[in-house]
Structure formats: structure tokens, C-alpha cells
């Protein structure tokens, strides 16, 4: 047997190697071989199915379209919400100008309402940052999928590059936190004060 001398050096070679090992084991005269052959055959079949499914991704352009389309849709949401926020503020600014011509009490009431509109309009900034994070995640998944498909294709590389964790100031750019994790202004103030 030559089981250790022809070990596969690339992922696409692994399946063929396993099949060769199974073939050699079948020729061995040993009562214990049947169990081992069965296990290896099971592994071989699973590798074949997995490889077949992943290789199918290579010729299926719909995946690229899916990711690209999703990212485009999300970016469109950012654009649309910006447009909506600006229209809301157009209206609020018009109300504010009218308020300036009114008596003090109604003017103050309208101005307070307009202030609330300005504050609420910041939703566009927050949602925009969240959507940008999702777009980046989609792009990262797309890249990883491409790497996986490449690994099962013509031998180029059998190792998907590991995305480097952000370092330095880049690690500080996380965007808005989920509401359950986010610090409140009072938390920030307390922390800020504690820093002297």
C-alpha cells in the first residue's frame, strides 16, 4: 500500500485520494477492512455531494446577482430615506418661517414641534449607518463564497484567506450599536466626567 506517500496537497485532490485509498483497502486481505471501507466510503460520498453543490455555485451567476442586488436595494433605501428626510425638513423649515410671523405663544408651540421634527429626522443618519454595515457584511459574504467556490475549482488555493480583524483606529468604527447595547447620553456623560 502507498497510503502515506501520495497524500493530497490540494482540496480537489482529496476526493480522488480517498477513493484510491478505498480501492487499495478493498484489495487487502483482512476481516476488519469492511468497517473501515464503509466509513471511508461514507466520507467519500459526502465529499462528492458537497463538492458537487459548491462547484454548482461557480456557474450560477444568480448568487452574484443576489448579493449585488441586495446591496443595491439597501443603498437605495439610504437614498430614499435621505430624500424623505429632506422633504420633511423642507416642510418643517416652512412651518418655522410661518411661526416667526405669529404671536409668541403659538409661535413657541410651532417652534417646539419643528424642533421635534428636526430631532426625529436624524433617523436617516442612524439607519443609513446601520444599512451601510449590512452592505459591508453582504460584500464580505460574497467574497468568502467566491473563495470557497475557487477552492473547489481548478487548483489555485486550498485555503480561504482569513479576513484580518481591524486594527488601530479602524477597530473603533463600529457604527450605531443595537439599542439594547447602546450607551445613553447619561452613560456617556458619567463616563466623560469620570475621565477628568
Amino acid at each position, binding site marked *: 500500500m502507498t497510503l502515506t506517500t501520495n497524500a493530497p496537497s490540494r482540496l480537489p485532490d482529496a476526493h480522488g485520494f480517498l477513493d484510491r485509498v478505498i480501492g487499495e483497502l478493498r484489495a487487502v486481505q483482512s476481516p476488519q477492512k469492511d468497517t473501515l471501507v464503509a466509513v471511508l466510503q461514507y466520507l467519500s460520498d459526502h465529499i462528492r455531494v458537497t463538492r458537487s453543490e459548491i462547484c454548482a455555485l461557480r456557474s450560477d451567476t444568480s448568487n452574484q446577482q443576489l448579493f449585488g442586488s441586495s446591496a443595491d436595494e439597501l443603498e437605495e433605501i439610504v437614498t430614499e430615506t435621505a430624500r424623505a428626510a429632506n422633504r420633511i*425638513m423642507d416642510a*418643517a423649515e416652512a412651518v418655522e418661517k410661518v411661526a416667526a410671523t405669529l404671536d409668541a405663544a403659538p409661535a413657541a408651540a410651532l417652534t417646539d414641534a419643528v424642533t421635534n421634527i428636526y430631532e426625529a429626522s436624524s433617523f*436617516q*443618519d442612524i439607519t443609513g*449607518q446601520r444599512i451601510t454595515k449590512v452592505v459591508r457584511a453582504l460584500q464580505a459574504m460574497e467574497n468568502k463564497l467566491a473563495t470557497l467556490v475557487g477552492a473547489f475549482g481548478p487548483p489555485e488555493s486550498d485555503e480561504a484567506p482569513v479576513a484580518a480583524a481591524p486594527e488601530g483606529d479602524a477597530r473603533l468604527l463600529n457604527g450605531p450599536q443595537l439599542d439594547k447595547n447602546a450607551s445613553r447620553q447619561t452613560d456617556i456623560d458619567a463616563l466623560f466626567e469620570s475621565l477628568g
Partner: protein
Amino acid sequence: MTLNKNMRVFIVDDYTTMLRILRNLLRQLDLNNVEEANDGDSAYHMMVKSPPDLIISDWNMAPVTGLELLRKVRADAKLKHIPFIMVTAESKTENVIIAKQAGVSNYIVKPFNAETLRAKIASVCGVTA
């Protein structure tokens, strides 16, 4: 003491919507002398030419972030004395500590309200809130 209505405020954010919100809220505080930029790099070059009295900046911008802008401002002899308020969705403890170490004057977490903005401006300008 009240806010100096003539002070020049420089606002920096890559979202034009947020710039407009800030400009409107500042106008309600009678602060109408406002300049703006969409990123830290152009903001810095504009400030060097004409230093403002107060800087209000977002953090998460490209290519020059608000933190980098803050460091450049604090390293510039002409600008280092200017109050700098960070207005950002980056609310992790680490962010606040690093901004403080870099010399930020105060820190507002988004979304914020008009009263918080007024109070922080008053605070960094040495005006009784």
C-alpha cells in the same frame, strides 16, 4: 452669560441630512454663523484657512475620520484651543475614552435632542447652561 451669537461654528458630517439638522438646530439657538464640510480632510483645510470658534464633528467619516480630525486640530497651533464636540453613534466606552485622550471637549451620542446640543455647546463655551 449667554452664548455668543456671532461665534463661528464648523459642523462636519458625511450625511448631508445630519448637516442640515445641525444647521437648523443651531439656528434655533441663534447661532447662524455656520460653516460645514462632508469629511475631515476638507474640514481641516477650511479650518486652517479660517479657524472657527467651535467644531462639531461626526466620527465615522471617510477618508479622514472625526477622531483623526480631532487629532489634527489638537496638533495644530492655530486650532488646538478650539472647543471640539464629537457627535456620533459610536457610543462604546472605548470610543469615549480614546476621544477624551485625544482632547475632545465633549461627546454627544446620536440620536440626540436639541437640549443636549444646547447644553454641550454652553458647557464647552464656558457658558452657564
